[in-house]
């Protein structure tokens, strides 16, 4: 159990460093789409929610899991879609009229 915990901590710390490296290079112009996009990624909690809701018999934890599935899915779907909506507006200079 502790071994698994240590391994998980390794993953967490290394992923954080990757996050810092990748995101540090993003220009301010794109900060809002970055935020809503990363926001959608944080909806990854949906995986935990699915596992929690997946038990066979209906219990409190299954119901809580199902609520979490709905909330996290809203987060994921709305996050990615609204980011796409924003990014399609970013255009280069069009041919001058």
């Amino acid at each position, binding site marked *: 159990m502790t071994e698994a915990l240590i391994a*998980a901590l390794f993953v967490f710390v290394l992923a954080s460093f990757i996050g810092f490296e990748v995101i540090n290079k993003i220009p301010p112009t794109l900060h809002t789409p970055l935020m809503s996009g990363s926001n959608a990624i944080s909806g990854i909690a949906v995986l935990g929610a699915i596992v929690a809701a997946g038990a066979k018999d209906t219990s409190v934890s299954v119901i809580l899991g199902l609520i979490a599935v709905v909330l996290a899915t809203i*987060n994921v779907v709305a996050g990615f879609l609204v980011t796409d909506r924003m990014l399609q507006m970013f255009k280069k200079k069009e041919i001058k009229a």
Partner: protein
Amino acid sequence: MSNFLPTGIQLTYLVAASLFILGLKKLGSPATARNGNIVAAVGMLLAIAATMLDQHVLNYQMILLGLAIGSGIGAIVAYKVQMTEMPQMVGLLNGLGGAASALVAVAEFWRLLDSSQSIPLDVNISILLDVLIGGVTFTGSFLAFAKLQGLISGSPITFPFQQPFNLLLLAAYVVGSVYLIITPDSLPIFLGVVGVSLVLGVMFVIPIGGGDMPVVISLLNSLSGVAAAAAGFVVMNNMLIIAGALVGASGLILTEIMCKAMNRSLFSVLFSAFGTGSSSGGAAASGGATDQTVRSIDAEEGAMMLGYARSVVIVPGYGMAVAQAQHSVRELSDQLEKMGVDVKYAIHPVAGRMPGHMNVLLAEANVPYTQLYDMDDINPQFEQADVALVIGANDVVNPAARSDKNSPIYGMPILEVDRAKQTIVIKRGMSTGFAGVDNELFYKDKTTMLFGSAKDMVAKLVSEVKQL
């Protein structure tokens, strides 16, 4: 739950995590950003599909129904939201993510309690941390949403003994957690800890004023990621840990950038209730200080200055966005470009209500992103500019930040419009900005004021420029 998942699922997670990192990387340039978002979305789809194959998941119909309901609501929200409302939207979504993470922890606690297994120490600690971070993200984000949406007053709310009360709450959380670590099977205490976490989220955002919202939204964004990672520790799922860590890091970077741009430390944003009465006090002070002269012109004169300039730098502030003047501003810049004027936009990092907000608003009005310049890029260029046109911005162009050591905004990075040969400021009146300080820019010889609402005034400028 501690057993590792089957190899196939794990490998799919590995692919999904790589897609997330790739997608975030592609978000770094406007040319590839849209593609990057799609790559990340594919990663999410893969991760969800793989999880459905988990042997613990038996209850498919209900989960599929939940996914469908969530997708439906999400799609509607995403297409209905106005671009000016993006900060609220992101705030709300942060809250939902935080709530989902906290619910995962509560569900896991309940499951372990029902199955009358003993709860291992590390799982217990992960659950408690997830409940705290997720709970704070949930209620804090909803409060931030309510403030930004105008459902409750955006000004800081303070009351006597606020800090001691917060410390008491924190102490209650710690005591409850320690109790649960010693005797893990006490449901009432656990629910109490959940409740305290939720109240802490409210207390965290309540004293923070509207002007500091960009910082708060960024910080909550980071927390929603950390909450997801904490949920990953609860159910021992690497995918959650990786994705959560990525988002946590990204939110933290944005928080730091916002703090720097506002010349404030994170500590002072969170604990000092900035602008508590200083807006009224500042306004009174400025009333007293206006014995200096202000040069006011009309739209016709302004149009002449702009039309015969070689280069113009437009400085949009949130006032422009509130007035929905961005489309008129674009019309103006098109008109000027037709006459051979070189037009650039100077964007201060806190020009909107969240990081990069102004860029999105201008993009929506079809301003090409190649015309938008960040503060560091445009500042050296102001000296070559014939006219700087300030629309609905105040504190971010106040030279006092550079020169007046006594000013509350001293040291804040500003757009140096006073270095341009001429400056035109479009403004309703002489009121002060968020910081509540008078702006000496308005009294400079090179500065002329166009008094009026941003939308009307820019529209007038457009028609006057057309007649040149």
